């Protein structure tokens, strides 16, 4: 992995972490979800810094270029996160539907009185 790529990756990740922190401070993201992103960022920084070690594992899996292995891991993590996000969205959707129905029925009830 070239030094340039390492520097670019680490700067980007650090900036991202700062952004997540700022959002967390302003209550624009819940602690639960910010934790996931801090963890992902941390893993990414580790993987970038210890790319020699990653190279050994990559070789073990038969992947020649280390960065490809890192990308593979990152994509895997992202897919898992997105899956749980869609599960969360479905749950939220059900809750909104429930609320909308109850609000509409309550509005109807108060009108009748």
């Amino acid at each position, binding site marked *: 992995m070239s030094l340039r790529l390492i520097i670019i990756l680490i700067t980007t990740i650090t900036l991202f972490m700062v952004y997540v922190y700022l959002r967390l401070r302003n209550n624009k993201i819940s602690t639960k979800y910010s934790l996931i992103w801090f963890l992902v960022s941390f893993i990414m920084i580790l993987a970038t810094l210890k790319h020699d070690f990653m190279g050994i594992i990559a070789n073990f899996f038969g992947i020649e270029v280390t960065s490809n292995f890192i990308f593979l891991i990152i994509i895997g993590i992202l897919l898992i996160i997105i899956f749980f996000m869609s599960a969360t969205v479905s749950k939220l*959707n059900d809750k909104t*539907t429930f609320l*909308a*129905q*109850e*609000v*509409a*029925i309550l*509005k*109807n009830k108060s009108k009748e009185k």
Partner: protein
Amino acid sequence: MLNKQAVMNLLNKINMIILCQLRNLWRFNLKALVIIPAFNEEENIVKTVNSLINIKISNVKLDYIIINDGSNDNTLDVIKKNKLKFIDLPFNLGIGGAVQTGYKYALYKNYDIAIQFDGDGQHNPSYIESLIKELNNGCDLVIGSRYIENNDTFKSTKYRRMGKNILSFLIKIFTSAKITDPTSGFRACNKKIIKKFADNYPSDYPEPDTLVSILKDKYIVKEISVEMNERAGGTSSITPIKAIYYMIKVSFSIIITAISKREK
């Protein structure tokens, strides 16, 4: 003096009892609610409700409720201007969410029977009586079917028939019940099913899906033959691309519902 008053009291009491008995005799024994989901139906909704109000069924008190599913035309104004009974959803929930609101309302208001009835004038209210009759004969859910007698009065395209046949076939495989019109939105059900639907109802294109879950729970489902009109006005919400997506989604959810463990 005292005796006279006692006699008067007694007479009054007897009078009251007789009146109560008479009132009981004349009172409607069953409360039925017609659920009319309406999304952008400003042209049809008044006509639909007017055709409903004229229906009189012995022993049944027939009410209706319009569920305005976040229409973005003048449906709500038309409803208010004509002083119709309605529930106004704060935003569009889709047909499933709208119909479920009706079932919840039926549950809260303790209705004995709920009837799904489209707001676009496709359904003929004169069949409501026969739907209710089947419920009284012990069915849990009665479906108004367009295809039961192979009558060609309802114009249907080749593709629509094909789609319907696929769904019927899937239902037959998984529940061994013969349903000729699984997508029919003209249905009546009793209290047990109202409770079930109020608790759990799929959000879009819900008819075939709910049928499978009800058949799996060993409820009694029956179809009766009805004629349906072409839409009186407005445009149908189903386009060809949506139809393919619909078929895939419904088939998928039928299979999932069918192979999942039933909860009772």
